[in-house]
């Protein structure tokens, strides 16, 4: 803007005191600082949105030992040490798009569930802050969620059907430690085909004793149909969800759900 036009824009009759260059720069610096600081804080607060919408507690399966979600988000220092010790790499870190959950660990059970092949809840031992509580030392004490037969009509056992082949297809990269195959090292599920008269994969491969079993659907001895029944021993590791051969899975983990609580 030229000097003339500036003068023309100024209110007539009022001789306006001109600010020195330094003052103008200082004022602009202050204004920019407010803007930049405000924008940063504003963006930071926007991280609240994901955790009350798509990244809510019931949508996030946390690693073994995770304390109550709010406390978990507060105490997790977002370092990923739990990720590093997991032998089947079940634990992944959340990303920027998950808001305050950014950098915290979670498990996508269908892709790769925790199968406790580390034997001693290594992720809990790795956690420096107790966001995965050190009160848990045995896999049986873990409560991540609860297995629920969400699609009973899809369940092969309930149809009385067997299962032959690889549980999730030949290309599925998921791992599991089959103790009878290799005591120490997990192998690919795709390398371990099955031939079952009645599908009982969720029961057969469950890493927790007595957490799930099959019950006959009727008293008729000729009726082969059985249904999986989850007990209060279930820790919510998600292995049944991972191994379930139907697509989508008949059984799923509801994160944070406790046994006996209304759904």
């Amino acid at each position, binding site marked *: 803007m030229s000097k003339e036009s500036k003068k023309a824009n100024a209110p007539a009759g009022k001789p306006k005191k001109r600010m020195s260059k330094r003052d103008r720069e200082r004022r602009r610096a202050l204004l920019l600082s407010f803007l930049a600081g405000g924008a940063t804080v504003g963006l930071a607060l926007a991280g609240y949105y994901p955790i009350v919408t798509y990244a809510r507690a019931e949508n996030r399966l946390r690693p073994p030992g995770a304390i109550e979600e709010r406390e978990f988000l*507060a105490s997790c*220092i977002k370092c990923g040490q739990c990720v*590093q010790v997991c032998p089947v790499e079940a634990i992944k870190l959340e990303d920027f798009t998950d808001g305050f959950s950014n950098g915290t660990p979670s498990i996508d059970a269908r892709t790769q569930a925790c199968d406790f092949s580390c034997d001693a809840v290594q992720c809990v031992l790795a956690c420096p802050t107790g966001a995965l509580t050190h009160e848990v030392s045995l896999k049986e004490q873990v409560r991540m969620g609860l297995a629920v037969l969400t699609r009973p009509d899809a369940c092969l056992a309930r149809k009385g059907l067997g299962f032959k082949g690889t549980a999730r297809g030949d290309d599925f990269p998921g791992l599991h430690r089959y103790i009878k195959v290799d005591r120490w090292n997990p192998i690919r599920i795709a390398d371990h085909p099955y031939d079952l008269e009645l599908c009982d994969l969720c029961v057969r491969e469950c890493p927790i004793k007595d957490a799930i079993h099959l019950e006959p659907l009727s008293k008729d001895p000729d009726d082969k149909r059985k249904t999986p029944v989850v007990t209060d021993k279930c820790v919510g590791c998600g292995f049944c969800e991972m191994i379930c051969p139907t697509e989508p899975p008949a059984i799923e983990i509801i994160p944070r759900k406790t046994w006996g609580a209304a759904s």
Partner: protein
Amino acid sequence: MNLYIDSLRQMLGGAPRRPEKSDYSKEAAELHAFKKTPEERARRRKLIAEELSEKKTSYKWRKWRWPVIILVNLIFVISYQFDVQLVEGALTASRVVGFHFADLNSALQVTLAFKEMLINLVIGTSTVAILWWLVGGRSFCAWTCPYHLLSEWVEILHLKLAEKGWARDYQLHRGVRTVLYVVFALLAFITGYTVFEWISPVGITSRALIYGTLAGMIWVGVLLLIELFFIRRFWCRYMCPIGMTYAFVGSVSPTTIHYDLSKCLHEGECRQVCLVPHVLEITKKGRATKPQIDIGADCTRCAMCLEACPTGALSFRIKGLDKLL
């Protein structure tokens, strides 16, 4: 005017002040007076002219510093990718051959949000605090922070663009970092979430390198774009609470950049390359109140000023080491 208190005041955002007459030590006053004598002035002009005729750029510290940043971050990556378990975790918290390390600022955010003193964090932060206290505090920024390195590369580009008039360096008030520091501390305490951690470009970059969580790099990219075109070193200079936390540690560190008034020709080369030029305000003509001064709290010990200084007036100094030897 106490130099230490004043360096803290400047770190929190206060503008550098012209010292009072009574602030000068006798030696400093004499040196300043001597520098004003006609012979000395003539000598200074001659020296500067000589210097300008054969200007050399030195990278004697940077050639170590950049590899150090890369190496430290690479150790994290290698430890995980090849399961060597030297440094497990990320920059926010880690185990270094089994010992707990925790970033001071991350630990602070967690403690404020969780409202419990966690023993591992106490151990981790003590270790880290002592470590960075020894080597200079904000030296974390210049010698370890992966975002700092990205930002440095962008700064080189920014300066090239600015030369052509395609970029500008808008100044902010440095007090904004202090305000953000308090705001983020309060937010952690009030909301119970580690609000700052989700936008911390340091944590984001560190985790992106180690775990491949790349979405956050979009935010880092936005910051770098701001730094490229509008505000030189925007995040490190004006925003980052982590830098401030380490600046507190550095304010009492024995490892410092040392200023020698007698060698200085007051050309201002050092202030042009510095991330935090206010700490070098004492190198202006007539500002140093003592002949020998250790640079203030905010200094990152990046040694760019050492490289820029043509007369060797700035050097690394470890307090007390001269007495010990």
